[in-house]
């Protein structure tokens, strides 16, 4: 298990370096991605919020989009709550470490003891890897200048695509809703303020009805 965690830490570190570098290259101060990684600790929400700030979408749209994306952590935290431990300090600290990745490690196990070990090893490892790599990326981004030269602007959409593929594979209904939502967002981008098109994409959810929900 430690080996699996280490591999995911390595992958997240690559993403973390891109995140720090892209944020700083987009004109944000170095402290912003670094602080955000410590207190938010959620890759896709951080990328989205920073993407909106860099595009000039404003802090309200940035925070709202990030929060909407993170609503899923509530569902994850319910699913892995038993793995945090019983004491309140463990629950309060552990809550901050609930991410897509830690949830995936816990949900792959059924034994209570193994679930707790998996949660804490993955949670602490990923927290360390993420924050160190974002700091490194932010400092490098300041030194590199134009990160578009290295294609780092393609890293964020590629990360999201990799994250979202399993959910798309699983359900045809979700695929249809996501395709419609994505098309709406791209079509609206020239006309609406930054951040708004992505929220408009939620209209795609209307294609989901409980009866037509096909897997």
């Amino acid at each position: 298990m430690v080996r699996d965690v280490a591999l995911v830490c390595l992958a997240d570190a690559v993403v973390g370096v891109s995140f720090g570098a892209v944020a700083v290259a987009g004109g944000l101060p170095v402290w912003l991605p670094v602080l955000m990684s410590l207190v938010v600790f959620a890759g896709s929400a951080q990328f989205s919020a920073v993407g909106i700030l860099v595009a000039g979408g404003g802090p309200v749209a940035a925070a709202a989009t990030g929060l909407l994306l993170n609503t899923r952590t509530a569902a994850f935290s319910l699913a892995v709550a038993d793995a945090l431990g019983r004491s309140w300090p463990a629950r309060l600290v552990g809550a901050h470490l609930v991410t897509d990745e830690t949830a995936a490690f816990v949900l792959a196990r059924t034994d209570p003891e193994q679930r707790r070990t998996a949660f804490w090893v993955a949670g602490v490892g990923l927290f360390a890897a993420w924050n160190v790599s974002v700091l490194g990326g932010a400092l490098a981004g300041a030194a590199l200048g134009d990160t578009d030269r290295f294609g780092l602007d393609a890293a964020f959409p590629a990360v999201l695509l990799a994250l979202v593929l399993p959910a798309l594979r699983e359900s045809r209904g979700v695929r249809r809703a996501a395709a419609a939502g994505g098309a709406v967002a791209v079509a609206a981008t020239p006309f609406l303020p930054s951040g708004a098109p992505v929220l408009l994409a939620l209209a795609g959810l209307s294609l989901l009805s409980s009866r037509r929900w096909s897997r």
Partner: protein
Amino acid sequence: MNAQLVAVLALAVGTYAFRLAGPVLQGRVELPDRIRELLGAGATVLLVALLATGALTAGHEFAGWARPAGVVVGGVLAWRRAPFAVVVVAAAAVTGLLRLAGLP
């Protein structure tokens, strides 16, 4: 206070509140399956919209071909279950090389 700092803190506080749902409600509340599925689907739709606009647009305009080409290569690798790090590096490398070759 700096508006960007407020955005970061608001996002942090809200996210932590979501994460507390599990430990606080543990054993007391069970989310209905339908709500859970809708939350999951909503997150997926948001992520796809973000990646589509992020791949194709810069500001209010088309981003040029280099970026979407890199994202497509990353997507194909992810589809074939390549490791996360490979997907990210390949996408950036393709986009960077296309720019080096003169494609915007």
